[in-house]
């Protein structure tokens, strides 16, 4: 089975755009978080697609390795981010990000 890379990249772009829109328009911190994960994984998808398409045979695993790194970073990010959300919720009784605007000038 050989899927052309343009398809994969298009899917990746759609996923990234969905993630961006999610971050910008949603107010629920959890959903924003999920959108960020979506963007990260769209990037992973793009990396896999490029690795398969362009890399010479002996360097084919380089893009894959990169993806694993990104997954690891995303996991740790989730750990920190969820902790932040929990802390905000504890003080604000809400996870609406528009409620958290005490840095307004």
């Amino acid at each position, binding site marked *: 089975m050989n899927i052309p890379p343009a398809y994969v990249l298009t899917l990746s772009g759609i996923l990234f755009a969905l993630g*961006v829109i999610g*971050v*910008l*328009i949603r*107010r629920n911190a959890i959903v*924003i978080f999920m959108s960020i994960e979506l963007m990260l994984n769209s990037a992973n998808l793009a990396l896999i697609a490029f690795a398969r398409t362009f890399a010479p045979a002996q360097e084919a695993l380089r893009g894959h390795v990169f993806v694993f790194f990104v997954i690891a970073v995303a996991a740790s990010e989730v750990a920190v981010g969820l902790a932040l959300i929990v802390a905000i919720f504890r003080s604000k009784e809400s996870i609406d*990000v*528009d409620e*958290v*605007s*005490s*840095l*307004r*000038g």
Partner: protein
Amino acid sequence: MVLLEVVQGGGFFAYAPLIIALPILGLITNIIFGRRLGERFAGIVASGAVALAFVIAILQFLALQAHPEGVTIPIAEWISVGSLSIPWAIKVDTLSTTMMLMVTGVSTLIHIYAIGYMHEDVRFQGDPGRYARFFIFFNLFVAAMMVLVSADNYLMMFVGWEGVGLCSYLLIGFWYEKGEDGIGNAVAGKKAFVTNRIGDFGFLIAMFLIFGAVGSLQFDQVFHWVHEHGLANVGVISVATLFLLLGATGKSAQLPLFVWLPDAMAGPTPVSALIHAATMVTAGIYMIARSAPLFEVAQSTANLVAWVGAVTALFAATIAVGQFDIKRVLAYSTISQLGFMMAAVGIGAYVAGMFHLVAHAFFKALLFLSAGSVIQGVEHGHHHIEHGDGEPFEPQDMRNMGGLRSRMKVTYWVYLIGALALAGLPPLAGFFSKDEILADANMENMGVYILLAAAAFLTAFYMGRQILMVFFGKARSEAAAHATENPPVMTIPLMALAALAIFGGALNLPGVHKLTDWLAHTIEHVHATEFNVLVAGLSVLFALIAIGFSWLLYGRKTMKEGDPDPLRKILGPIFVGMENKWWVDELYDFLIIRPYVAISWFLADVVDWRFWHDWFHDSVLGSAYRNGSRWLAWVFDLRVIDGIGNGLGNITSWGSQRLRVLQTGYVRNYALAVLVGGVLVLSYFIFG
């Protein structure tokens, strides 16, 4: 034999520096020991030092017999800057040795006289502590005079010139707390000093001109230059000699700077005799005689010198006729006689001038010292009769004298000899010296001759008047009636000087011309004047007529106490003019001193104080500074400097106010900004 060899080898020349060193040694001794060891010691040290200097002068004279061309003895390098090189050197030649002999000889006699005179004077004036000081000044004067006459260059001569001026000032004001209003003597000293300063200014300018033209101040080099290039440089030499003449008129009390000499009589009488009659005042004549080569080239200046001398001679003689102070008569007589010498050197009769200088030194020193003797004799008389009433008494006023002939015999005789010598009666010294000047003037310049002959006539008249008023008739005051003769320490020098006044004419007898031959070794163009029987006869005749006149007026009828001067009736207003010195002091006061004081006041009060200090400093500078600071503080600092600081703050504040609205605090806004930024950066990389 040994002595003869030394003389012929010129070995005595080596002692010449001692002639300056000995008086200095004397004065140093007196500074250290003078007050402690008493009057006798101080007087003997001072007189001895000068007497030894006289011996040195005689040694120079002997050495010059074998080497009449003279020598220059270098003592030390003095000033050496670039091409200017002025050594400290002593010039021993016939001219300077003539002066050395005369000055040290007369000084020795006057020093000895002063031992007795000052003994009385310091007691009369009430401060015996000043006895030693007097002799210190006297020795200093002799040392300065020796520097002047032995100088080998103009600058060294100037040092002596200033030195004698200083001593003159110190000694005129010797009793500085005495005199009119308690400052009269000090004022007289100041007047002498300031007037001399005008002459010294002339001397200085002349030196600068000579140095500028020649590049040297040494006599030999200057005169050599004049021989080589004189005729091509008559202009600069004329100007330089004019300034030298100004110097000479100051020092030798000639018109127009003679006014200080009569006032200088405020000094003790030995000072008048030594400094203001015999030696210092002749320095101007000596200087012109020394500069003879310059004046030979600058004939117009020489002519002016002759006229200045002749006019001064007559002018001062007329004033002398109307004076009553015994010393003032002699002072004006000195000015008059200096005029004779000046006229002589002006017409080129340098030998006649020097001859009269020496002869005059003898008889004028004699006259002054005798006058001092008269004054002290009268003071004795005054003390004798005074019983504490303390009435003011003027012992120098001839109207208070009379009849002293019998009370002061020695003084009378020596005074008579001096007066006759001054009047120019043969065979006294004054006859030969004055006659030589008159004979020269008769040949060279008739106008000068007439003036001088008239002055000689008046000279005989006022000396006759003085003798008759002082020594003849009846005593016109109690003091004169009780006057006493002075001790031998005073009268013996008088007799010695009287002998010199009698035989001084032998120096340059007509037909023999010893002094002419002697000075011919130093001064060029000297000429032995033939004895002119007509001139000599005329002057003797005039002198006798003048003395006859004076006898008619003052001798025939005895003057009584309080009688007016018989001449006053005859001459009327002219006598008033003579008595008041033709108002020259008042004229100078009006023409020079008052405008000068007014200008000084104007400069001090208006220009300096009101304009410069009050207006310029206080108003202009002060207020400009104050206004400037005020503007800087209130305007520049507060508005500009603070404005910059505040403005920066305000701009920042205003900008921050505008920018703070960007910080909404909404996370999604920031995320959008990040997205936009990311898109822009990517767009740049992709499309840029």
